[in-house]
Each structure stands twice: as C-alpha cells, then as structure tokens.
C-alpha cells in the first residue's frame, strides 16, 4: 500500500458516505420517521419493543434496516474472505458499556448516525449533541493514550461467528409472519408506526451494511482518529453523509431549520450534550459506534454481537425505568442514569488503563 492506495480509500469512503446519506433521506421519503432514515439506537430500541422486552407502545417495530446491516456486512465479508469469527475480549464489560451508550443515545434521542441526519434536516439541537459527542470522544482518547485496552480477542468457531446473523434472520421472519406475540405500534401511535416497506428497508440496510463493511465507516472513529493520529479518512465519510443528507433534504423539502418543534427531539441543550457525551465516551471504549458494532457482528465478531445485545438491554431498561427522553424533554430518571453512566464508564476506563510495569 502507498499514498495512492490511501487516496483511493478516502475517495471510496466519501462515495459510500454520499450514497448512505442519500439512502437515509430516501428512507424518510418512503415512510421512516423524519430525520430518522437510519438510527441504530432507535431501531434497536424499536425491535426490542416489538419483541416485548419493553412496553413503550409508541416505539415497537422490527426494523429490517438492522437485519439488513448485519446481513449486508456478513455477505460482503464472506465474499472478501474477511469473515473471521473472533471474540473473548471482555464481553461482559462491553455489554455494560453498551447499555449505557444506549441510555445516552435515548437521552439525546438518536445514535451518532441520527445525530448527523438530524443536523442535515435543520435540527440545530443536534449541535449540542455533537458538542457533547466530541467531548465524550476526547475523554475516551485520554484513556486510550493511557493504555486503555479490553485485551485481545481470540479465534472462535464458525458457528459462534454466524449465530448472530442467523438470529437476525429469525427476527426478520417474525416481522414477516407477524404472530400475535410481536408488538407493533398502532397507526399514528408514534414513531414505531412510521416505516418504509419491509423490502425497501431491508435492501437499504443490505447496501449500507456492505458499504460500511468495505469502508470501515464509523461515526466515532472519525473524530477519534483525527485527534489521535491526524487521520481524516473516517471523518470524511461522516462528513459525506452530512452533505448528501443535507442536499437530499433540501431537494425533497425536508429541510426545516430551527430548535423548537423538531421531529422526535427536545430542546434541552445541556442534556442533549451530556447524553451524547456518554454515548461518545462509551463508543470509544467499545472501539466503534453502534453501526460499526452491527457491521463487526456481521463479520463474525462475537464481542460486537454481545455489544449489540447490550444496546438492546439498555433500550429495554431505558423504557422500563422511564429513562428515555421524549419530545417534552428529558426525565429526572434519565438525567440520573446518564450521570451514573458517566461515572461507571470512568471507573471501567480507569480499571482497564492500569498496566503492570514492563508489560507492553
């Protein structure tokens, strides 16, 4: 590899970012909630609700985008021979970090991906989210520089690496079959009722999953790598999504600038920032944003699969314990949970940054 290969990688990720941004706006056009063509946190939360792990009636739907993302990454990884089952790098720690990442996302009402899409739709509350997100990432970088590590992973059996993808197919089958025990938000009953047709959502997920697998796209890695190494590759993908989604929104008349009355958002700047600070910090400790975790899980990374299950558990907790924000704003329980989360992650980060003298 040389400089021209590096340049090629950057061009590829910008192209992928542009396509992904356009697909996200397209999904809103086809029925997804506003500024929510993609939201990994919201979609995992919706699926968790549909499966009955929480009972917030407004946000229950099996999102085929999630299934598609995992499947798209899985298929492309098989094709490119990058499917490598691995795991064993502190799975329980990852589970706990992921729970708090979800709680932070649901304070803000979106994952890092939706944060970009909200900004591209004119929701300026996202600016506070980005501020907090960058702060959280910088905090994580401090620990990375101190030697934070969850230690190495090891090779696993093929079945272990494949089982999470199979689970996604089972969840997709439950969506199509729609048995009585699966919960769906009633028409006009909330964001869960707004969705594109199953086929469209699934194909969108497949394409984005494949592109993200190929380009290693990651919302948290972008800012992290610029701070740590002066590397702009990942961040350029992030910015390309913003540009494409902005243009798409402008063309389709979805651009609606302001703070108040934004779709599925609240105007509490401080808690928007703190929620995303928790999410950004946690994602650095996990090594990637929620979307990247889905992609890695598809590639056979079982630590990432456990992380996704932790995100789902966090979503269930957030709604069962009244932690998730709504358009009215954050809840007292949610504020307490975010603060607890920041403390817990600080302890986890500190404990995993201590090294014996002489150890590399």
């Amino acid at each position, binding site marked *: 590899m040389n400089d021209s290969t590096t340049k090629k990688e950057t061009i590829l990720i910008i192209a992928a970012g542009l396509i992904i941004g356009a697909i996200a706006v397209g999904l809103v056009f086809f029925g997804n909630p506003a500024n929510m063509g993609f939201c990994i946190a919201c979609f995992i939360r919706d699926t968790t609700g549909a499966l009955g792990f929480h009972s917030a009636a407004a946000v229950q739907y099996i999102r085929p985008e999630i299934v598609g993302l995992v499947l798209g990454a899985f298929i492309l990884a098989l094709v490119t021979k990058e499917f490598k089952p*691995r795991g064993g790098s502190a799975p329980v720690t990852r589970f706990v970090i992921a729970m708090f990442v979800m709680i932070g996302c649901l304070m803000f009402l979106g994952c890092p991906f939706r944060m970009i899409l909200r900004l591209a739709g004119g929701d300026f509350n996202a600016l506070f989210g980005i501020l907090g997100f960058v702060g959280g990432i910088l905090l994580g970088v401090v620990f990375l520089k101190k030697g934070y590590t969850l230690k190495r992973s090891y090779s696993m059996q093929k079945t272990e690496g494949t089982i999470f993808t199979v689970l996604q197919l089972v969840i997709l089958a439950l969506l199509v079959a729609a048995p009585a025990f699966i919960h769906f938000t009633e028409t006009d009953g909330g964001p869960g009722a707004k969705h594109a047709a199953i086929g469209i959502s699934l194909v969108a997920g497949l394409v984005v999953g494949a592109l993200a697998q190929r380009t290693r796209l990651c919302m948290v890695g972008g800012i992290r790598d610029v701070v740590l190494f002066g590397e702009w590759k990942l961040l350029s993908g992030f910015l390309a999504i913003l540009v494409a989604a902005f243009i798409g929104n402008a063309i389709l008349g979805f651009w609606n600038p302001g703070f108040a009355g934004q779709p599925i958002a609240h105007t509490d700047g401080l808690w928007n920032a703190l929620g995303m600070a928790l999410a950004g910090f946690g994602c650095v400790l996990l090594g990637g944003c929620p979307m990247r975790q889905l992609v890695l899980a598809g590639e056979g990374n079982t630590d990432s699969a456990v992380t996704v299950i932790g995100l789902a558990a966090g979503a269930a907790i957030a709604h069962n314990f009244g932690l998730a924000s709504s358009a009215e704003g954050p809840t007292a329980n949610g504020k307490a949970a975010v603060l607890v989360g920041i403390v817990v992650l600080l302890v986890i980060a500190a404990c995993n940054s201590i090294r014996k003298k002489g150890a590399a």
Partner: protein
Amino acid sequence: MRTVDARGLSCPEPVILTKKALEAGESMYQILVDNPTAKENVTRFATHQGYKVSYKEEGEDYILTLKK
C-alpha cells in the same frame, strides 16, 4: 528490528501501539495484526510517517514490515 504484537486487538489499539513504537525512531519494525482493518490502519499511519510498508499473510495473521 523491533516487533509489535497487536494480534487480537481492535482499532485503534494496533495503531496506538505502532505509534508508541515508532517514537523510538528505529528504521525497521515488524507489526503483527490479525484483522484487515488493523492492517489497513497501521499501513496508512506508517505510510504517513514516511515508512515503506509491505506485508505477508501467515495463517490468520498479517505480518507488516515497516522500513525507512
């Protein structure tokens, strides 16, 4: 020649370990990684630091050689 074993580690750790090792300013390094993302990221970083990078696959692992 110094060797950095970053096998099993996920990004950005292999790059951080590489960066720390490169601070010693030696002219040749060997970096062991076991996933293509780490291979790409270490290669990109080392290239930007002025090293020529070549690699070979050995089983599950990639052995990168950095030369200045």
